[in-house]
């Protein structure tokens, strides 16, 4: 930390002495400006989060990525973040504020930030944006996502093998391609090993609401599901399943190991740290350009949490073989023959789904019950 006593300008209006405000939020601005006076300005990296960093799931892992950036670059970077930013108009305000505060690179970490990110990026052409799980790009907007559906294939396999009631409950958040892909992948691999399996999907219309997620899990369990898959961010469904007993779950976005070995028998872990470090480095080097990154188990963006001993050894071995085949690129979870829900052919025998179709997936595959809400 620099020891100069600097006069800093906040929003171009207030002049403050650094020493006076060292312990307040203003200290961040003071340190940044003081360092600038020393001639090595840290790169300012911003993060917009949809939930709290302590959600134990999605936002938690993005925040781990942020911390990894701080640790890797030390005082060459300064990170800022805002939690619980609603998807919509308020997100635009949060991003604008971050850009005005001098952020050089902003990661917006939820699907619903897509249009706000594009809108704010237009106003700040010199700020780089990285939007997670979306599909709209611009000269200063990259997109990145992980192939969670690869992990869903493994979950589906274990679910199909382990369900006794042949009913699998799925807590879905919003009807967007990422979520639908996960449902299809899980169902496909569950029905491959268990043709009698049925999926009931509950749309919670939220990413984070522990009480509602717990209620949804309870409703599914009361309706006979003995496997719960979730695409929401909190660990509440795990707690509900633990309460009900003899129900298995999978950690979502984060390992959720505190619920192992039962009900949590495995998990999908999002590992954003290497990507975040790589992109921050690119901005520092001046080599940053708009790209679309979509990595899976192979490159390590999707991790499969330890499969616990609650899973029979043979099922565990199969699941691990499936994981390794996907990682090695030998097997694609969406390999034909696969029909759409209405019975029409989607992928003929042996054909593999292309990324374009996957990115915009808006249909169930054959065998799924119910309709996707609009």
């Amino acid at each position, binding site marked *: 930390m620099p020891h100069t006593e600097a006069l800093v300008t906040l929003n171009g209006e207030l002049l403050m002495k650094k020493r006076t405000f060292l312990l307040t939020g203003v200290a961040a601005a003071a340190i940044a400006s003081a360092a600038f006076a020393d001639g090595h300005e840290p790169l300012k990296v911003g993060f917009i989060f949809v*939930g*709290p*960093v*302590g*959600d*134990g799931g999605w936002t938690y892992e993005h925040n781990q990525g942020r911390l990894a950036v701080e640790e890797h670059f030390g005082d060459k970077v300064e990170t800022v973040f805002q*939690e*619980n930013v609603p998807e919509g108009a308020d997100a635009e305000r949060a991003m604008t504020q971050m850009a005005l505060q001098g952020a050089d690179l902003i990661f917006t970490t939820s699907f619903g930030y897509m249009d706000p990110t594009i809108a704010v990026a237009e106003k700040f052409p010199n700020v780089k944006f990285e939007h997670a799980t979306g599909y709209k790009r611009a000269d200063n907007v990259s997109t990145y996502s992980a192939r969670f559906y690869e992990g869903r294939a493994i979950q589906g396999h274990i679910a199909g093998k382990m369900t006794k009631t042949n009913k699998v*409950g799925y807590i879905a958040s919003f009807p967007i391609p990422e979520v639908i892909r996960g449902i299809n992948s899980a169902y496909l691999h569950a029905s491959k090993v268990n043709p009698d399996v049925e999926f*009931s*999907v*509950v*749309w*919670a*219309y*939220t990413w*984070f*609401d*522990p*009480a*509602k997620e*717990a*209620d*949804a899990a*309870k*409703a*599914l369990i*009361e*309706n*006979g*599901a003995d496997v719960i898959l979730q695409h929401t961010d*909190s*660990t*509440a469904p795990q*707690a*509900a399943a*633990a*309460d009900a007993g003899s129900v298995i779950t999978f950690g979502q976005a984060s390992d959720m190991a*505190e619920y192992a070995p039962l009900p949590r028998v495995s998990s999908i872990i999002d590992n954003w740290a290497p990507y975040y470090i790589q992109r921050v480095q690119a901005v520092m080097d001046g080599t940053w350009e708009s790209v679309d990154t979509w990595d899976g188990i192979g490159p390590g963006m999707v991790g499969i949490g330890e499969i616990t001993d609650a899973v029979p050894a043979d099922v565990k071995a199969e699941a691990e073989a499936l994981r390794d085949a996907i990682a090695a690129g030998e097997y694609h979870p969406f390999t034909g023959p696969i029909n759409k829900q209405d019975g029409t052919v989607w992928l003929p025998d042996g054909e593999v789904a292309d990324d374009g179709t996957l990115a915009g997936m808006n249909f169930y595959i054959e065998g799924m*019950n*119910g*309709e996707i*809400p*609009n």
Partner: protein
Amino acid sequence: MDLSINPILLVASLMVASTPILLAAIGEMVVEKAGVLNLGVEGMMIVGAICGFAIAVETGSPAIGFLAAAIGGAALSMLFGFLTQYLLTNQVATGLALTLFGLGLSSLMGQSYVGIKPPSTPKLDIPLLGDIPVLGPMIFSHDLMVYVSLAIIVAVWAFLKYTRGGLILRAVGESHDAAHALGYNVIFVRLSAIAFGGACAGLGGAYLSLVRVPQWTEGMTAGSGWIALAIVVFASWRAGRVLLGAYLFGGITVLQLNLQAAGVAIPVELLSMSPYLITILVLVIISSDRNRAALNAPASLGRAFHASH
């Protein structure tokens, strides 16, 4: 598609799902009856959630946890009480600040409690009543807090309607100047009401973290404090209707999730918005008679009191 919703389980989970907002709403109703608008319900709930959770984990007793939650919620509400009653700050702004403060404070307090399982709150095994077919498992097989919340509703109703204290509280809410002129201590009455509201909100929060979810997660109230505030208006400041409103809202929330889980062919969008839709609808119907609805709101609601003589 079989319609296999079990009505017994449905009513049982309805009661559990409604209890947090029921507790928070009845507390806020008393506060508003005393003429104070405390928008900090969400903040007090979440502080109650972590206080209750932490103490229950440390002592191993959910009962002590609930007690701590009530104390925590009341303590936070006293901050609001001090600011609005003695320093005469704006109630709306102070209430909103209380919510933000509560959310921040709770995540700070909860740092070391993420991922911990709380001691389970035992379900009461009521002899005779619990053995009644259908009704037994539906209504008489819950944990103590469900009945405490119902008892609070009855107690508040009786207190406001039949006791002298209730009359004074209502007088303070209707016209603080008149109450003051009669020699009642307006500030004391209001502070007591605010503390009661805080304690109830704290209990509601702890019910979330100890029974309904049960775990501690940052921001876990996820807006239920605001629902509680809406239910007070919905109930037009009557205890019985608070119960109705909370159970209606909680009931529809649970019902729509159950309908989805059972695969009923109703558009999901409609199901998901139904709790809010029906709340709005009932609000419209209740307030259709403008004069009566307005009459029910405490006349001094949200106005600062300063004894100048």
